[in-house]
């Protein structure tokens, strides 16, 4: 699989002086051609900031982002219309991502016009094609976003993202503002379009079950740093990092008995160490981790390969100096039940 997007040592800093915040701290990952990579994390994990820097909306303070070997950060600055044809976005909130004063036709036509090189007639045909692809009637063209439901608006946003036939689409929580039944429709639409066009997704979400359903690879982030990365199923079904375990255990299952089990497991897998500061030079999860040792607070863990995944935790690093170094999370606790989420 050829690599489409490669992110190396990305850092994004907000603010200055004493109030400086490291929103993204040394994050690396890659997305292959036709692949779906997911960034998973809670609020403050930096996942959306990473997505926005892939779109030229946030300027990283250091690190490289290569799209097909070209510097994408500079690319967005200097040749925006060129990159717009390669990289597109679907945002979380379909209410504010569509201009309420423009008709659906105008919204879909706009990227085509900005890109130029398409006659008015061809552009109109392309717009109709996209409406078909996302399952909206052609009559939608003359109407305004306010006339549509949230799910339909998200379809319009997806059509706009794909109208230029990009190779990579950054989906920033595209279904989390939608109702359950609509959510399933939009997830299905995203996977169908992926099959038809071979587009890659960088899928940003806090919802592990949705990620497990859609993604090939998952990167788990916490406070701007990578905790664990690997095949989506492995990460969801057999999480390695204590944070991923806590995250999986916290996501409720729709089954009373399984949820009760999960609840008990979660109580074991999280600790609140009020005595520990949140900002430590070591692992950012150390203040909440039940396995925290001195080394976790003092030293930032290295990425360790484990099976098909990579985990950034002293527990898995034989040379870390953690009392349980190299042994991983104790086997006595039951691993997260596969797929039950």
């Amino acid at each position, binding site marked *: 699989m050829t690599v489409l997007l490669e992110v190396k040592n990305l850092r994004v800093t907000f603010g200055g002086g004493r109030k400086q915040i490291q929103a993204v701290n040394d994050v690396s990952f890659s997305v292959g051609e036709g692949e779906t990579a997911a960034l998973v994390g*809670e*609020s403050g994990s930096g996942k959306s900031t990473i997505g926005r820097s892939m779109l030229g909306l946030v300027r990283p303070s250091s690190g490289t982002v290569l799209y097909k070997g070209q510097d994408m950060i500079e690319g967005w600055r200097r040749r925006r219309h060129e990159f717009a044809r390669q990289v597109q976005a679907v945002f979380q909130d379909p209410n504010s991502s569509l201009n309420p004063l423009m008709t659906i036709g105008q919204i879909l036509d706009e990227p085509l016009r900005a890109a130029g090189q398409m006659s008015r007639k061809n552009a109109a045909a392309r717009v109709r094609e996209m409406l078909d692809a996302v399952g909206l009637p052609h009559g939608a063209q003359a109407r305004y976003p306010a006339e549509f439901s949230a799910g339909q608006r998200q379809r319009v946003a997806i059509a706009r993202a794909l109208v230029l036939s990009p190779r990579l689409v950054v989906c920033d929580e595209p279904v989390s503002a939608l109702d359950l039944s609509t959510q399933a429709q939009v997830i299905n639409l995203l996977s169908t379009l992926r099959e038809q066009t071979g587009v890659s997704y960088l899928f940003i979400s806090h919802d592990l079950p949705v990620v497990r*359903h859609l993604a090939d690879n998952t990167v788990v982030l916490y406070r701007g740093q990578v905790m664990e990365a690997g095949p989506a199923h492995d990460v969801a079904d057999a999480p390695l990092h204590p944070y991923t375990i*806590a995250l999986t255990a916290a996501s409720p299952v729709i089954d009373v008995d399984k949820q009760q089990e999960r609840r008990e497991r979660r109580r074991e897998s999280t600790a609140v160490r009020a005595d520990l500061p949140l900002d430590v030079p070591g692992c950012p999860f150390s203040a909440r981790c039940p396995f925290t040792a001195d080394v976790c607070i003092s030293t930032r863990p290295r990425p360790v390969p484990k099976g098909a995944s990579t985990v950034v935790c002293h527990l898995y690093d034989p040379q870390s100096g953690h009392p349980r170094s190299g042994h991983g999370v104790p086997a006595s606790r039951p691993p997260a039940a596969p797929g039950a989420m």
Partner: protein
Amino acid sequence: MMMPAAEETSSVPRRGLATRTFRQPRACLSAGWLVLLVLASVILPLTGLLHPLTQNPAAILQPPSSAHWLGTDDLGRDILARLIYGARDALALSLEVVAVSVIVGAPLGLWAGFGSRWGDWISARFADLMLAIPGIIVLLAVVTIVGNNMPTTMAVLGVLVSAGIIRLVRACTQAAVKELYVDAARVSGLSGRRIAFRHVLPNVAGPLIVQASTIAAISLLTLTGLQFLGLGPNPPTPSWGGLVAEASANIYRQPWMMVPSGLAVILTVLAFNQLGDALRDALAGPGRSSLLAPARNAVAEASRRTAEANRRAGSRQPADSDAALIVKGVSVTAPLNGGTVTLVDQVNLTVAKGETVGIVGESGCGKSMTALAILGLLPSNVTFASGAVIIGGEDLATMTDNQRRRTRGTRIASIPQEPMTALDPNFTVGKQLTAPARRLLGLTRGQAREEALRLLHEAGIVSPETVFRSYPHQISGGMAQRVCIAQALIGKPEVLIADEPTTALDVTVQAEILDLLRGLQREMGMAIVLVTHDLGVVADICDRAMVMYAGQIVETAQTRQLLSTPAHPYTLSLLDSVPSRTNRGTTLPTIAGTIPRPEKWPISCRFADRCPLVRDACRTQPIPLIRTTGGAYSRCIRTGELRQPGTLPAGSELEVFEH
């Protein structure tokens, strides 16, 4: 096409700004007056009928007559003619001020609002300077330099008033730039200029038009003032200000003279302002109408009072020893296009002490309205149409506002969806806890402090002292929700209503909050009504749940039973559409279509149009809640034929019933 057919679209016709403006009579009157002035000042000189300089010594200072409709002045000149000839200058110069201020102010405001640091600094200093300069002195100075050249003077006035435009455009631009669609436009490859013209300017246009009308009115007044002082065109050229001056010179000889010129000025200024107001209201759109329709609310209020009076007749309810909350036949309506729509239809619900009951559904199903109806906190345009909310043998629905206020906090309390907005940013957490503690429990300052700290500790906060002193913005969302829970528990309520209490929180925090609620409930034995869209939350904390669809309960059952053997096709479809053990590339089962809008809810089964099980019988009659196995109820006539959730191979078409 593989997608389920397009969802039904709502067909709210979107009327243009012009239509919405001119449906208001004052807008038509104002625009009519201005058009009349323009037409008259253009046409009259062409006809040569009346001339403003023609003197008639035989008819000076005359009142209105058939020859001179508005009378004559001290040289026997026709006042109507002089007014109309003067109107051209009055209007043109006012519009000049508007044009200059917009041309100067709008680009500067856009530049500032687009986030360019230099642009912002320069524009802000320019605006400050313009506001600091005493305008009238500058104008008088300009007049001494350029003489009676009014266009130049008015251009200077335009620059002076452009400060307001700069600030307005800057604020509007800053708001627009934050919109996601501007991000989307950037990602679409649009140039900055194109984004400014297509996405930002249209948002600025509305407020700008309103501001422009105000400026037009102000400049007409300024212009008249200057002309009155003799700074306008030299006599005998007619000007409105000049006419007022001439009239005041002859005020004792012919008072009538003041009326035409004075009225012309007043009417035109009024017309500018009214037109601006009408535009503002039209721009505010239909969202405003509910606030601007007190008459309709009064009707709603009256009908509520009648309903209350009717209920009061037989409202004494026997206290059920086990039930903490009994909700009986609660319906909620709202006005729509002259009629009413029912948003919540005959909801019944009983919650025992120490029990948690979930209200589940998608947006627009009425679950939040039900919660608000129980709390007696419905929005002002929504009416509690019928039903009873009984806590401790008393019906909250029939209480007066005062009585009901006394139940809040002690009988019934609520936990908000967004803890951050529920706390007042102006007061410390401590203040927000001690104030209700003193009011509800009658504690002294010191006791209230003790109690607040105890509750914070109780709510799982590790360092209550620190949080007690903090302002809401200094604590995290999860912490804020703990504070809100502590706040709700002050009066030891019997019933706690939690409307999506964890939706705004991360999953790990959500789990902690649910644990906290569970623990507190075990300790204090209150009944909890939990409104949620998340079936996982239901599985975690609810003993029983009721599923709402289109304003009705469609199913109620013990949680375990509801989730394992749902008795309504809607519940089953919801459970199926959760991605769980599916793989990449497989298709999730979905429900076709969307929830219909309240005005389209049929009297028969409301899910019929989306239901794979639908029969003719479903569409002909109202479907009652039917008792099924294990004490569950389902509003479905084919409830016995449902399969279990998740038993279909993923990817197959959604078939709800068993083969």
